[in-house]
């Protein structure tokens, strides 16, 4: 053996899967393309401008922060995902400087100041959207485009009007750039599901619990048309498949993901039905993000071969009762003995 090249040594395991962080991010970007593409088709080229500005602003912010920190992280593509998601959550008429400001806020304040990728406790895109919603409420809820009046289906529903369900599924309604077309969102979601990047735990429990909430408290009972309009309208689909499933800000445990989905469904229901605004997905997810550490703590998996604390308690209690019973019996018998 030639001794010119030294062998590499490391701890086990010595093989790694092909999945990488930027591979995952790239897949998410690809999966968002149908929604983004439809947004551009439906709202015109201004939508493309908004998307480009936000993505540029998130990437440049992360790049500049990387220079300051002397550690460059834009290669993981997470900034692109954040920028794209933010753009899809903005109305097409938004002034471009506000879109750019949102990008800066998402990356600098929500992500990098908390330690960068993986450390942020809120979804950066949604936190930025909420920041803009509070700072520029009128601009952020101005959904007029072309010649349309600009009332979103949810706003129409809230005021007791009727909506055309088919238009909502295709996406020919008012709304933010990426939320209108259910078909485009589901097409993207299918890509992620098939690649195993997301699973149905959160989206399914989110949408189902929301539907149940609407049936119970929506005031329309089991009205399929109203229910479908609520599910397909607003940011629910985009939120459930692309934002609630964000790795960093959702619980890591399987059980916790179901709980998280249900929490989001209920919160969205509360905000939409009892709140003053027609929409509530962004706030629900942000609030849900804050509950994640608690949910994770409560749903830690029971290690293989161990007994869950609850079960252990139940077993201990049973054992105690058994011992007590035996003691009772023994003392009763003892008493009898005395009598004899």
């Amino acid at each position, binding site marked *: 053996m030639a001794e010119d090249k030294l*062998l590499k040594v*490391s701890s086990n395991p010595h093989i790694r899967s092909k999945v990488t962080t930027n591979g995952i991010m790239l897949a998410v970007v690809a999966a968002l393309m149908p929604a983004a593409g439809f947004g551009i088709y439906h709202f015109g080229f201004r939508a493309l401008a908004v998307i480009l500005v936000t993505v540029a602003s998130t990437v440049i912010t992360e790049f500049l922060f990387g220079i300051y920190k002397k550690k460059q992280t834009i290669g993981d593509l997470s900034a692109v995902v954040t920028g794209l998601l933010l753009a899809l959550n903005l109305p097409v008429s938004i002034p471009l400087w506000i879109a750019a400001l949102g990008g800066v806020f998402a990356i600098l304040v929500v992500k990098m100041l908390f330690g960068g990728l993986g450390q942020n406790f809120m979804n950066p895109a949604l936190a930025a959207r909420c920041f803009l919603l509070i700072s520029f409420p009128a601009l952020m809820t101005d959904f007029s485009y072309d010649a349309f009046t600009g009332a979103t289906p949810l706003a129409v529903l809230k005021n007791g009007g009727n909506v055309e369900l088919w238009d909502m599924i295709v996406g020919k309604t008012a709304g933010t750039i990426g939320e209108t077309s259910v078909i485009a969102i589901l097409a993207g979601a299918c890509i992620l599901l098939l690649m195993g990047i997301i699973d149905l735990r959160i989206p399914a429990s989110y949408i189902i619990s929301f539907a149940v909430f609407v049936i119970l408290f929506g005031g329309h009972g089991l009205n399929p048309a109203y229910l479908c309009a609520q599910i397909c309208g607003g940011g629910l689909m985009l939120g459930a498949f692309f934002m609630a499933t964000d790795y960093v800000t959702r619980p890591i445990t399987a059980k916790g993901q179901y709980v998280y989905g249900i929490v989001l469904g209920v919160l969205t229901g509360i905000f939409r039905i009892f709140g003053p605004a027609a929409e509530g997905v962004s706030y629900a997810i942000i609030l849900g993000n804050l509950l994640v550490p608690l949910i994770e703590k409560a749903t830690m998996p029971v290690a293989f071969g161990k007994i869950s604390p609850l079960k252990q308690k139940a077993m201990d209690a049973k054992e105690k009762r058994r011992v007590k019973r035996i003691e009772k019996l023994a003392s009763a018998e003892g008493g009898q003995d005395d009598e004899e």
Partner: protein
Amino acid sequence: MAKLTFTGGIHPYDGKDLSKDKAIREILPKGDLVYPLSQHIGAPAVPVVKKGDHVLTGQLIAEAGGFVSAPIYASVSGTVKAIEPRRVVTGDNVMSIVIENDGKYEAVEYPAGKPLIKYSKEEIIERVKTAGIVGMGGAGFPTFIKLSPKEPEKIEYVIVNGAECEPYLTSDYRRMLEEPKKVIGGLKAILRLFDKAVGIIAIEENKHDCIELMRRLTKNDKRVVVKALKTKYPQGAERQLIYATTGRQINSSMLPADAGCIVDNVDTVVAIYTALAEGKPLMERIVTVTGDAIRKPRNFKVRIGTNYHELIEEAGGFRVQPEKIISGGPMMGFGIFDLDVPTTKIASALLCLSKDEVSAMEPTACIKCGRCVEVCPGRVVPSKLMVCAINDDEEGFLKNNGMECCECGCCSYVCPAKRPLTQTIKSMRKMQLAKKKK
């Protein structure tokens, strides 16, 4: 019926095609043989020969150094050249007996073997003990201790571990295919110790020819069943294997015997058979020499003590310059930096890879994707344990069941950020175990 398996686990590229069709070939050592005194869990063996002594094949050269220990036998005839520290696969220098091979293979007179039924229970255990048999799947735990649990009447299953879930390894597969009767014979010997026990030969589905063969040979045997397991790593890990075959769960602080089980590797069972039927101590084992850097991947019957250089030579040398050489499988084996080390009782493979995937990948930030949680067979949260380990948070590590990790490597394998999860958790575990001992 649902397939027998466990939750979690991974499906890496298995690489078994390289060597699975190559029949076992016995190779005779040419150079010196080195016998580390510590090839098992427990106290090192104590040499009973000294420099200059002439020894025969099968002669005792070191006796057990305590209760948890195992004796070592010469696998060739020759002269004791030295008793000195020599490097072993882990990179440590371990006191070893070095024997210069005279090439004559003169053997001692082995105690006569006899049919299994003529052995008493005590005799079987005594034979296993004196033959120096240890768990040959990789742990190296002295087998006679496993075979003498506190309450032998409570043992209900004796499981032969033929899962061989590690990628690239084919030594157990070839053993089961070529010497199935020895495997069954060894299992029956163990069953004689436990009157109530049923023997289970557990094999992964990808070795369907082994399953069929074993089923055919044990058709009329009421005490032996062959179970097909789902092909998945780490199916052959002791706890996962017990769960898959019997539905019972044990944790890190329990022994298989607590669940009424005894688990032994295929090669170990064959060694038991050889010790009983032929009277021979443990002197050889099957080693798979494979990997994309090897010219002719093969399965060899190797005398313990043989230098790794000789194994590579027998396999036709290197096809390309290897970047990484692993003693054992790619998931749990040791990366070695020097081929000048001996084959031990627990070395199941020598894997030579032309590319090292690990060093080419830079670890990045954890994105909490949860893949490690999904695959963990121990059902812990590796990403959280790693944080605890990095921060020296012992309390958090223990509270989050860090000691339940079986170091199988699944978490590091799937991590998209390429974080060294297993390595970090493993070193924290080692520290905790060392503390416990004190």
